[in-house]
């Protein structure tokens, strides 16, 4: 039962992070939210007894994904354009 | 039995400080003060949680299960050191970036760095 609570908390965080990724107009904030999303996804993999996948997601999500997103934002623009 | 108590106490302190840290980043007014709460308190809380795990590993080693609990304790310790180190550096980087991006500490009474930069 307590495992279910843990899982529920992590999954809730996951969905919130995903919604925030969509919500943020500031792409940098979205990238930060993506980092958090990646952490929580890895934690969920961990809870689902998949440590190999969790390490892979950790190694990728913690450093590299944020890095390439930030570089792409640096290469383009920081703010999403407002729809006219 | 004493070990159990120590573990409980360590876990309790750790969780308490983690909770305080989260509370701190929710309550404090600007990014620098939030960084105070984040860096110190959660790191400290995690240190205590890790201590609980290390103590648990130590008790199991006492009971004669050497190899796996030794590696548990040692790896936890490494994670701990790495976490403290990276958290401190990361906090510095963020504070510096926030200052460079022009965020002034809100209720600050003095800002020597800003004076130097100008």
């Amino acid at each position: 039962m307590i495992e279910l609570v843990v899982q529920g908390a992590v999954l809730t965080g996951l969905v919130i992070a995903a919604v925030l990724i969509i919500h943020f107009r500031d792409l940098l904030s979205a990238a930060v939210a993506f980092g958090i999303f990646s952490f929580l996804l890895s934690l969920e993999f961990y809870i689902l007894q998949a440590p190999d996948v969790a390490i892979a997601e950790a190694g990728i999500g913690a450093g590299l994904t944020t890095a390439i997103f930030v570089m792409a934002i640096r290469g383009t623009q920081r703010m999403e354009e407002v729809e006219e | 039995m004493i070990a159990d108590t120590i573990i409980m106490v360590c876990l309790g302190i750790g969780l308490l400080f983690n909770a305080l840290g989260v509370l701190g980043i929710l309550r404090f007014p600007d990014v620098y003060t939030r960084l105070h709460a984040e860096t110190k308190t959660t790191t400290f809380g995690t240190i205590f949680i890790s201590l609980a795990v290390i103590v648990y590993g130590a008790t199991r080693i006492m009971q004669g299960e050497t190899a796996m609990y030794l590696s548990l304790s040692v790896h936890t310790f490494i994670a701990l050191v790495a976490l403290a180190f990276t958290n401190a550096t990361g906090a510095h980087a963020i504070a510096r970036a926030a200052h460079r991006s022009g965020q002034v500490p809100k209720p600050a009474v003095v800002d020597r760095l800003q004076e130097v930069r100008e």
Partner: protein
Amino acid sequence: MFFNLPFIVAALLVILGIITMLIKRNLIKMIMGLSLVEAGVNLLLVSLGYRAGGIAPIFTNAPAGVMVMPTVQAMTLTNIVIGIATTALLLSFVMVIYRMYGTANANKVRKLRG
């Protein structure tokens, strides 16, 4: 039903990613949506392999117990690598497009049409 939470969240992530790709006009945001879809698929894969009360499929110092299914984990690993490769390639494309077009808005990146 309630215990199917990981499946539901995985499906939700896929849908959120799809929504992002449909309504957001910024190319980087669209790629984030693509990554969300990918994360949802990964989560679905891993949770498909979970068995109640299972332990990780690693025999090193393992406690006794039934093991969760390993094949999906191998598949997920492969998919994660493919995902990072795809994301990097797409972001490189977006950077080049921005440099040439001066915009990363999908509404304006449309020299090819008709």
